[in-house]
């Protein structure tokens, strides 16, 4: 029974969230929506930062691209949300590819700086390209509608956000348990051995950019639904650091980590209310403390204590292989 609980923690989470949504007030609903949005963004960041070990600083920018593309497609072109949402993800992914292709030639400090530079440039474009982005005034976000029904308040947009979050989680699970997920980990641990096993490292890294940008773009589009109005300040340095916090506090290299991180870091600012200063100090200290004392985050901690199952990197559970006849050579036992 307990084992069934452990192994299905994510589906249970979704069921619980859905059940709770019948009883929440508007403000809590808003926070739940926000948390689910952050789960999506954190999943994407986790894929490139936690699993692939690549230090990419550009996710605020990808999120912004997703949010603005989604809002503009609906506002200016009148496209339905069902089109705007995937377009948000795809356009962010496209930019991710474009950045990724040259960026993977550099690593470490250089990758961090290039991606930070890109973040700044996107911010600058958002602030100065007034005719399109509204500059620092930002733009309003139309409510999505499906089959003529408008999803205008938080309770209604919850359903959209919930479904998208669930789908993106299933996708993340698919990635992690496939060749791609294993390739990410191999790249993190040693590119040379990865190459010698046949992994095309450059291609895999570009894809890491693209897929994590896709997540950020989708997250950005969902984010715009929760805010109803977006401006460049929503996607600034502070936002990026919060995302990093989610991945580190929650636990990198684990699918459950982003959930833990998003949950804690959505509700934490509520406790630390008003002063931006206190929020900054809070996030900063969280990052430092976790990185020193609990580098694999809360998920890592729980996995080490056997409370959570270890992250699997292969598909369906295997049937125990039959014992073969006595082998010609025996490796020694520990």
């Amino acid at each position, binding site marked *: 029974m307990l084992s069934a609980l452990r192994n299905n923690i994510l589906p249970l989470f979704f069921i619980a969230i859905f059940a709770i949504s019948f009883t929440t007030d508007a403000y809590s609903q808003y926070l739940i929506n926000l948390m689910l949005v952050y789960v999506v963004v954190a999943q994407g960041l986790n894929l490139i930062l936690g699993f692939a070990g690549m230090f990419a600083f550009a996710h605020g920018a990808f999120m912004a691209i997703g949010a603005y593309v989604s809002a503009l497609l609906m506002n200016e072109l009148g496209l339905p949300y069902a089109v705007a949402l995937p377009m948000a993800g795809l356009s962010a992914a496209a930019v991710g590819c474009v950045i990724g292709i040259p960026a993977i030639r550099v690593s*470490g*400090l250089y990758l961090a*700086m*290039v991606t*930070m*530079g890109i973040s700044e*440039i996107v911010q600058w474009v958002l602030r100065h390209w007034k005719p399109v982005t509204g500059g620092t005034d930002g733009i309003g976000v139309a409510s999505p509608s499906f089959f003529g029904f408008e999803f205008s308040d938080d309770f209604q947009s919850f359903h959209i956000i919930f479904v998208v979050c669930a789908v993106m989680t299933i996708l993340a699970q698919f990635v992690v348990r496939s060749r791609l997920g294993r390739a990410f980990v191999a790249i993190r641990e040693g590119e040379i051995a990865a190459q010698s096993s046949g992994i095309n490292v450059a291609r895999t890294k570009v894809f890491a950019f693209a897929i994590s940008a896709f997540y950020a773009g989708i997250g950005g589009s969902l984010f715009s639904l929760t805010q109803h109005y977006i401006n460049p300040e929503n996607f600034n340095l502070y936002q990026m650091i919060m995302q990093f916090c989610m991945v580190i506090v929650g636990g990198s290299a684990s699918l459950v980590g982003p959930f833990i991180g998003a949950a804690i870091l959505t509700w934490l600012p509520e406790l630390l209310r008003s002063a931006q200063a206190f929020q900054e100090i809070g996030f*900063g200290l969280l990052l430092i403390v976790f990185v020193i004392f609990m*580098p694999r985050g809360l998920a890592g901690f729980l996995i080490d204590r056997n409370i959570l199952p270890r992250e699997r990197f292969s598909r369906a559970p295997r049937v125990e292989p039959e014992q073969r006849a006595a082998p010609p050579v025996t490796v020694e036992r520990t």
Partner: protein
Amino acid sequence: MMEIATLLSVGVSNGCLYGLVGLGLVLVYNAQGIPNFAHGELFMATAFAAYVANVILGIPYALSFLIAIAFAAVLGMLVEFLAIRPISTNRALGRASTDVAVVLSTVGLMITIKGLARIPWGDSVRKLPGAFSTETVTIGSLVISTQRLLIIVVAAVLTVCISLFFARTSLGKKMRATSQNITGAKLIGINTGHIYSATWGLAAVCGGIAGVLAAPIIFLHPDMGTRMLLKGFAAACLGGFGSVSGVFVGGILMGIVEIFFGRYLATSMMDIFAPIIIIVVLLFRPQGLFGARRAVRV
């Protein structure tokens, strides 16, 4: 003609600041392979330290300057000891995870220090008075701000001093040895812990000097550090991360081009210049203008 000269003086002095900040980044990166995202905040914190000493406590400028520099050195060493060393000496992490962890630690420091400064001083910008009571000086037909002149002079002196430090002093040579080959350095008995403290202290001092010199011109505010960080990185990229003078040349180049862009194209373009330089240089000529073609530090 006079306008060009003025623009040049502004550009060169800005560039010297970028070079100073960039030098701090280069020092830490060369020694430990760590991109110090908190460096801009050291710049900012030292400027505020000078403000507290001079404006609030009324200490004379020169002494305040020295106090601020001492503050910077201590802060830099403290940061390294408390927030960086525990991670890089943690054997339990894989190498890639250690790299990511250390960078994130500097990111966390960045925002913590910024938040701490915001509590007392977040509401408005403040002014630190310049080093001299006369605002400007006239050389020939050129009117130049005395503060800017000071910046250029200090930067020049520092470049020479630091180059000599690395070439001639025992500590400097040990720092170079450690940055080139850490195992070798340990083998010959260099206490790498001391080296790291010294490196971070020196880097913080560079950034701190820039902060105190810059404050009268750009005004004090908790967010002043992050902008400087990018520009410092850009200067370091142009210079190629290898030589002390390279960073300054890179910074000056950047300062000049930036101001001319701003004057003749649009002021808004100035902000975007640093990130563009970073991206273009790193992607197309990672060794910068002066660096030798060396393996990118992986």
